[in-house]
């Protein structure tokens, strides 16, 4: 009896041999057998694979049956593994990074100015000054400077980067958003990179 559970995501080097032990967890009551099973090669990474390969559970089951057809295989969990080929990390130049930083900085500065003009915030602030104090003031900086600081504070607060030490385990909305995006991408590649999962009429 062999229990196998594929991992969700595995990273490998280019030209690596992917063995069953890399993509799956296994439970077998025979220690020698499990070592042999783990060493079965199921895929050789080629340059044409680019960076994503999907290993289907069927392929793993077939490889195990080829090794010993008398084994009883039980699969649990995900039915495919996403194998990510990690090429040498792209050299991320600090110039490139600085450009993106500047783009975001200037972009958001301009966006907030456009927003203020769009909603006539200057007039609103002048009105508010009059409502509170009863006096007129064309430049209510007493209100506007704390407002500007609060603007940055609010953004940081929303993403929870002010309190680096989190009190609880709850992820920040950014982390949840990144996770959802990754899940959507995974779903997409599972269906589109795995030739067995979609069969079209005109393919035959």
């Amino acid at each position, binding site marked *: 009896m062999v229990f196998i559970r594929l991992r969700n995501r595995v990273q490998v080097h280019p030209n690596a041999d992917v063995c069953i032990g890399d993509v799956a967890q296994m439970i077998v009551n025979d220690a020698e057998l499990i070592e042999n099973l783990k060493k079965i090669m199921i895929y050789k990474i080629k340059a044409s694979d680019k960076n994503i390969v999907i290993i289907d559970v069927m392929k793993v089951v077939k490889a195990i049956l080829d090794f010993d057809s008398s084994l009883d295989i039980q699969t649990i969990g995900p039915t495919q593994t996403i194998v990510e080929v990690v090429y040498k990390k*792209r050299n*991320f130049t600090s110039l490139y*990074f600085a450009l*993106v*930083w*500047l783009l*975001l*900085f*200037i*972009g*958001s*500065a*301009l*966006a*907030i*100015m456009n927003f*203020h003009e769009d909603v006539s915030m*200057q007039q609103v602030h002048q*009105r*508010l*000054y*009059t*409502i*509170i*104090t*009863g006096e007129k003031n064309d*430049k*209510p*900086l*007493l*209100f*506007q*400077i*704390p*407002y*500007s*600081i*609060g*603007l*940055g*504070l*609010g*953004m*940081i*607060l*929303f*993403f*929870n*980067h002010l309190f680096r030490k989190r*009190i*609880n385990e*709850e992820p920040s*909305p*950014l982390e949840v*958003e*990144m996770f*959802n*995006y*990754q899940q959507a*991408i995974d779903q997409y590649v599972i269906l589109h990179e795995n030739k067995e999962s979609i069969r079209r009429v005109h393919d035959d």
Partner: protein
Amino acid sequence: MTIDVILIIMIGLAGGLAVGSGFVAFIVVLGVIPRLTQLTKTMKSIHAYELAVVAGALTGGWVSLRNTALYLSKYLLIPMGLFSGVFIGMLAAALTEVLNVWPILAKRIGIEEKIVILLMAIAFGKVFGSLFHWVYFVDH
């Protein structure tokens, strides 16, 4: 005459209803209040927060339509400014969330550790842009 008055009341009420429900829908979609309750762990007081939003909208509407003047200390404006800034900042942050900017940016550029620094770029950009607008831009 009576018809006119009733008509005006009807129109005013209808306009208020439309704007009020739009305002609530906006706040709900951006999810600022759930985020605040999550940060402060005060899920139980959510109804009090609803009341705060409604009361705030009512007060704001009333004082701005009635040309009220309260003759209070001008230093009261400092905390008010800070709070309104935080509120708008959270709205802006929530808006970028809805637009799914961050995950795509992080994937495209391939930097997931440095995303905090880019987040800071946006936050500082907002602070700088806002200060520049109030201190310099409005005079020119």
